[in-house]
């Protein structure tokens, strides 16, 4: 049992290490900016996820108590990572893409990042 636990933990650690590496390596290796974004957002997240699972398992098998709070970090990363990526993608679209270089946006005509309107309506100064 203990050995199985250790095995499991080691497995997750190694997997996580690989994914962590892949994530950052991808950031370096992939040539086009949009593609680069793929690697870190998920590989790294999975890498951390692996470490967190290893940590949970470690507490169970080695320290003999249940510790699940690592899940919270996973939760945070799952909530936040897509948003970060989304923003960086928007930055890329804003800077490096034009409406023409992107696929047609359907009925809405244009993608939100390119949807720049001059709004001259004046309103009151906030406090």
């Amino acid at each position, binding site marked *: 049992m203990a050995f199985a636990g250790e095995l499991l933990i080691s497995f997750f650690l190694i997997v996580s290490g690989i994914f962590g590496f892949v994530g950052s390596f991808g950031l370096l290796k992939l040539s086009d900016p949009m593609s680069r974004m793929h690697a870190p957002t998920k590989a790294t997240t999975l890498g951390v996820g692996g470490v967190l699972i290893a940590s949970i398992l470690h507490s169970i098998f080695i320290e003999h108590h249940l510790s699940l709070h690592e899940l919270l970090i996973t939760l945070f990363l799952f909530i936040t990572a897509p948003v970060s990526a989304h923003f960086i993608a928007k930055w890329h679209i804003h800077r490096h893409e034009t409406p023409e270089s992107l696929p047609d946006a359907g009925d809405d005509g244009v993608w*939100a990042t390119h*949807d720049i309107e001059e*709004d001259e309506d004046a*309103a009151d100064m*906030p406090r």
Partner: protein
Amino acid sequence: MKTCNNWTGWKLSVISALIDFHPKTGEQLVSLFLIVALPFLGAVFPALLIRAGRNACAWSAGVTTLLAFVGLMINLPAVLRGEAVTARLEWMPWLGLNANFFLDGLGFLFAGLILGIGLLIILYARFYLSREDPMGQFYTYLLLFQGAMVGIVLSDNILLLLVFWELTSLSSFLLIGYWKHLPEGRQGARMALAVTGSGGLAMIAGMLILGHIVGSYDLSVILQNKDLIQSSPLYLPALILILLGCFTKSAQFPFHFWLPHAMAAPTPVSAYLHSATMVKAGLFLMARMWPVLSGTPEWFYIVATTGLITMVLGAVIALFKDDLKALLAFSTVSHLGLITMLLGFGTEIAAIAAIFHIINHATFKAALFMSAGIVDHETGTRDIKRLGGLRHLMPVTFTIALIASLSMAGIPPLNGFLSKEMMLEETLHTVWGQSHLLMPGLALLAALFSAAYSFRFIAHVFLGPKRSDYPAHPHDPPVGLWLAPAFLVVLVVTIGLNAQAMVGPLVKVAASAVTGGELPYFKLKLWHGFNTALLMSTIATIGGLVLLVMHGGLERVWNAMPRPEAKTIFDAVIRALTRLSRLITDTLHNGAISRYAMIFVVFTLAIAAYAYFTGTMEMPTRDVQDAPLLPIVAWFCLIAATAMLTFLHRNRQLALVLIGVVGLIVSLSFNFLSAPDLAMTQISVEVVSIILLLLCLNFLPKTTPVDSSLTIRVRDAVIAGVAGVGTAALIYAVMIRDFSFPTISEFHLANSYKGGGGTNVVNVILVDFRGFDTFGEIIVLGIAALVIFALTEAVLASNVRAYLLNRKPEWPQSGDAHPLMMVVATRVMMPIALMVATYIFFRGHNLPGGGFIAGLVAAIAFVMQYMASGFTWAAERQRIFYHGIIGSGVLIAAATGMGAWFNGLPFLTSAFGYVKIGPLEEFELATAALFDLGVFLAVLGAVMLALESLSRFAWQPGMVTEHAMDINPKRDDPPDPKSDQPTSEGET
């Protein structure tokens, strides 16, 4: 000096001074304190009475002066008996500065002159000054000056004397500059202040040295210690410094130049300051110190020579002055030189002559000044070239001026003749160097010129034909104006005729005070028989007449001669000094903080290096720990990021990213080095700081241009490098050594749980052991937020607001300002983040965490809303004002602290206990948690107020206010028939 007694002692000394007020003998009715104080008291009235009219001012001034004069006279019998009247009051025994006064013959003579002539001046001035002149001010200044003079001559404490001495400089500054609209007045005043003030400063040093030689600052003690003083190696410095004071005040060469420029003052001032008072102060002091300072070759050569040169020079220049008052001014210089020379001789008879001439000069010179003032007043000019023939128009004035001038010229039987005769006699007995002739020869020359300018004063102003081009229509003034000079010429005549009876005893007591002992027998008399002095006088008189005749020709020669103009030189010096000061100041404080910082760093390094290399070092006592992989990686990242930041800092955005990296690594390092609390705090602060910096950078240029040359940058890099090496070496040296003593934190570790109720020792230190630091810390944070708020208000109230409202973004903005994903994510995150904040808060006492980090986390939860949904949208939802949150935070912390008072314990004493309710597990309640709540609130409020304030800069009309998200299909689309989701609520 002695440090003595205490409060009580001081009180006793005051009382004893009061007892001194009681007369010991029948005569001593008026305390010297009163005599000195009266003019000062009197100075108050004119200023207050100015509404009551000019006469009231003059009367109040006159009456106080008269009272003082009468008070002085009451002391006359005692003085004549040779008794010294004293009044003592301890003022600053620690320093040796005490309000000790004494009155002897010398003091009496001078005080009498000061107060007596003062009275006459007050009378004269009442009629002299015009309606436009502020009379209250005049009399106030005059009485201040008078009081200071009286103070000088009555002081029995040289420090006290210094006080009055400088006071005369100040009050004369006001008097000379009385006519503010005249540039000559302003410049003359400043020049007089600069010269006499600087002399006074030198004298301070001299007096202090003297006091140190003797061990007392009391004149009565100092005057007893001639041998001690003269044998001291400090005698010469003291002498020179004191004489500097005397010479500047008494306008001795080469400091004589200020006096003629002081003539810009109203004539009553000139008459007062330059006949009887201010310029005589220097003489007085030389006379006063005569017993202990004179009699040495140093004294003789410095004082007598200076006097001689001054006498000759003043006389010569006076002859060629066309301004009446300038003529009189240089004649004054000359006569002061004369008296100085006499004092310099160091013999008793010379001292008697000096004293006698002081009296005589005061009488005729005051009369002459007043006459000149009358001429000026009536004719509208003081230019001799425009005058002449006034004897028919102004007979009274002519008579007064004639008598006084003749006295000045040394014509018998007037008083000026007597003392001049004595002077000439003394020069005959005086050897300068090896020369027997130098002294008498030059004295004769001076006398000759003296006669010449005196005659000129009469001849070119009053004699000759009447002119038709006077600026005004001259006639004799009202009696009020000529009464005072008339009285003085009466004295001139009577003293001349009957010197011994009139002033003999006074001269005697005064001179014996000067010499400090018995005097040789002397009698002041008109006729000494035919002697060399008389011959010299005759030559001088005849020569004077010849010079007068030759004046026109001589004047051409004089004007053709190149002469250094003292005022030009002085002005040039002052201007150069000012310019130099400006240069130094502007160069040194050029507003370049980059240079200030460099100096700061270099200076610090130098001093620290000095301290280090003059100290001792032992071998290291601690083993160096191994470095695992993780810290090496972190180290590498940190170094790389820092290096990049330094080299690439011009790209500001990149720099902020790199700062983020550095913060992250530092936080990681704290974690690794057993400081989880620090790590959390560091990273939270980091994020908020970056948000702040980004908010700020939005408005700033996005790149930093190259401002410094390569040389400067290399220099800075070298300095920075040295600083870095120094810091590294210092901390390394620290870390490889143990504490020299057990640290106090052992106590904290031992008592954290027992006494503080927490297992997180860092937190217990923060909220308990050193809660007071934390209290200060949250106040700092609160203040920071207030400052930021106030700055925002100030900037937005200025014209910057218009700029901000019309500002266009520097680069094109993307669409979709508030992306849906972000909004949703923050909405989900917010409750969780608050949960985390709560958790961090509650566990802090026992595990890493606490109010501060919790506050930051909570703040960030709110900030996320601002970032995602927009300023206005988020601000509308804010229900408690951040000011209130900050305030309540600090107040809660303070109240927690004060709660301990009710248990009779000191501020911030904590209490804790363990509670068990029903089936719940036991939990801890601690006042420290309440304190930490204060921390939490203060941090939350401060961060939010700061960020919110900064965000207000970015607000522009047209920003979306009603919706959090720019894109929201559910809001924008018609309700989907398939969906039963109600959409009526809408986003507010």
